[in-house]
């Protein structure tokens, strides 16, 4: 087990390095640069700025310096676009925000999604199944950029119950709408995966045996069926969790939460090289980490899997 984890973490290092190099290449291949605007800067001014940010160096030197600063000083550099901020500062500010609403959204999506899926499976082909499946499909075809304005229209403009955006240090009123808007699509997916996986498990031999032995239904589901039924759900949850806690550009832009989700798109559009790299590395590391967590959970749930 321990050697498995160590091996995986060791492989992660070259993976991240390759990620960095590929991102750098893609970034420099894109036309334009962080300091181009409708009004071009005079050559002398541009030269000063490029030299300050090391953009006058050869690409190889830039990549090396970048990696070296991270390894030696854990310094991800200053933002090129937001000159008052460092990348570490922006992530330190924005990541707790997305972590908060992402975590709650994850919790909502898993609890409600699994409950709906199980309910639909054990009441297969009844009105409950149709209702649960119907609403899950409804939710999955309702993207968050459609859902978010509807939520704001209803809860902010018409009812006046909740603020239409902002974060305000994470007061609960500001968290509710982003959580609902983010959770819905994931919830629907989890419900559908749970339902089909549960149906399969419920038809398997060992459940039939348990039923034949006369075990109560609740015990069969909770003790015997749920665990194996969760395997496909689990492989979905790993990447989903990372996607949720690193936020969503729609949620961040729409609810002005100040989270890091928006940087995935904005930093690329702004050619804010250091921020692009910062969020790419963050997501890379988290993805590797949670894929590992999922693998460990797999082994724990399914004894057939050996690490």
């Amino acid at each position: 087990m321990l050697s498995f984890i160590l091996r995986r973490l060791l492989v992660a290092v070259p993976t991240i390095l390759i990620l960095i190099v590929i991102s750098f290449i893609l970034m420099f291949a894109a036309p334009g640069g962080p300091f181009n605007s409708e009004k071009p800067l005079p050559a002398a001014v541009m030269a000063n700025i490029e030299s300050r940010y090391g953009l006058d160096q050869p690409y190889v030197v830039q990549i090396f310096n970048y990696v070296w600063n991270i390894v030696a000083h854990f310094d991800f550099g200053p933002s090129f676009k937001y000159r008052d901020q460092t990348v570490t500062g922006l992530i330190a500010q924005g990541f707790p925000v997305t972590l908060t609403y992402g975590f709650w959204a994850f919790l909502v999506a898993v609890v409600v999604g699994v409950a709906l899926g199980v309910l639909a499976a054990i009441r297969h082909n009844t009105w409950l199944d149709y209702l649960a499946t119907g609403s899950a499909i409804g939710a999955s075809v309702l993207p968050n950029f459609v859902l978010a304005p509807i939520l704001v229209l209803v809860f902010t403009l018409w009812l006046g119950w909740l603020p239409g955006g902002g974060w305000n240090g994470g007061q609960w009123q500001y968290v509710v709408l982003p959580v609902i808007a983010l959770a819905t699509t994931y919830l629907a997916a989890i419900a559908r995966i749970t339902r089909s996986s549960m149906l399969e498990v419920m038809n398997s031999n060992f459940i039939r045996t348990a039923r034949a032995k006369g075990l109560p239904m609740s015990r069969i589901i909770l003790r015997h069926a749920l665990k194996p039924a969760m395997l496909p759900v689990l492989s979905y949850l790993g990447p989903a969790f990372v996607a949720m806690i690193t936020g969503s550009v729609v949620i961040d832009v729409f609810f002005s939460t100040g989270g890091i989700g928006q940087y995935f798109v904005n930093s690329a559009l702004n050619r804010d090289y250091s921020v692009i790299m910062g969020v790419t590395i963050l997501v890379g590391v988290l993805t590797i980490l949670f894929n590992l967590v999922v693998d460990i959970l797999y082994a724990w749930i399914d004894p057939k899997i050996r690490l």
Partner: protein
Amino acid sequence: MTVRTLIGATSLLAMVATGTLVHAATPQPGETLSDNQTFTYRVLDEFPSIDPGLIEDVEGSHVARQLFEGLLSQDAQGNVVPGVATEWTASEDGTTWTFKLRPEAKWSNGDPVTANDFVYAWRRAADPALASPYAWYIELMKVANAGPVIAGEMPSDQLGVRAVDDHTLEVRIDSPIPYFPQMVTHTTTFPVPQKVIEEFGNQWTQPGNMVGNGAYVLSERVPQERIVMTKNPNYWDAQNVIIDTVTALIINDEQQALTRYLAGEMDQTDIPIGQYPRLKEEYPTEAIAVPNLCTYFYHVNMTDAAPEALKDQRVREALSLAIDRDILVNNVLAGGQTAAYTLTHEATAGWEVPEVPAAAMTQEERNARAQELMAEAGYGTDGEPLTLEILYNTDQAHQQVAVAVSQMWKQTLGIDTTLANQEWQTFLDARKQADYQLARAGWCADYNEASSFLDVFTSNSDSNDSKYFSDEYDALMEQSRTAEDPLPIYQEAEEMLARDVPLLPIYFYSSDFIMDDSIKGYAVENAQENWYAKDMYRVAQE
């Protein structure tokens, strides 16, 4: 009037006005102040910087105008009023300006504001070590040695600015600029606290570290969420400041910002394109459209790589004539924009739009003339088929304009147009490389003067993406710099552009916003929209 006497008159006027005039929030008789003296407004994106030396955008400069005070400020109409300086005079030859600073001015940490703070700020802004994207502004002001300092050929202490004593600042400029006092209302010229910057480095703009000399201090800053400024008790005129908290909410989505405005979450936000008429009807006292010193136009590719047709002046002129600008401004944009047949925005200070032929015609006449020209050139309905491409940066509004224009060209001239859109940086790059046929542009004045527009089309301009190279035009613009009255020269330059058609002017921008009608003293009539929260107040509403 000679240049010298013009400057003399300006500074004399300034002298008369000083001392007695203190600009501050002044409620009118009969107005009751609200208990809630806050002003909350929306900005599009996180501020690239709020360091006066580094600010490069309008929104950052709005914040700096609350946190700092420059030598001079503007009133609600945009006129120059005293700031830290109470008197300002030019020498006989107009190349030395002397500013007398008020002794009572203080930084928010209690230190006095001295002439040295300005000297430090100006040197810092020009210094290659800071690498400010606005360093060129110091050069634009013609401060002596600005060019060599920015280029790193001279140490920054050689810049033509010095403290005669604690309260006297002297600036040497290369040649007279009559509107120099206007130029020192710009945020790049604001003082910055040397002690604080040296202590905190680039973290000095964070709350807790930041020290300013304006009517407000920075109390909260959450990137991509909000910035909060509260009243500065150490401001020299604090007793006349009424608004106690100014908050900028960062909201990327315009429509969402409007919804939140309507839900009462803020006092001011921009109006999304096309919605002005509806909002004006629903909220007549809140929806506002004012001129904004920017011009929307299409660059025409004037290089050899351009399609053969575009090299024909008649085709370019026909394209320009066949754009029905009235339909665009009244039906497509519908937000107080006005039709443009020339480059310089009509609301520019001291500017009179010249009567170019196209402006005087009706659209029927323009269309008829356009068809004639096209027929002469041998393209369009009865000639060679022609397909042109309009390139714009991805945006719904630009698309709507391009679609309408292509319809007009199809109907009037019988030519086809394809539309191409690109993401912003890619678009800028394509335009710079002249890798386009017709490309959208929106040019905004850096300062309120016609040359800020007209300089774009000089041969050595970095923004001349049409690649229009005309010795005659360059000579005119050169001549304007030393002319007593540059207006007729500027007008001649406009006529040249109208004749050569390196651009298709489309409309003059307006700024459309919606603002709570309890807010008073906002700089609605200031063409640059430079507002000062210290001059504003909120009245109680029944």
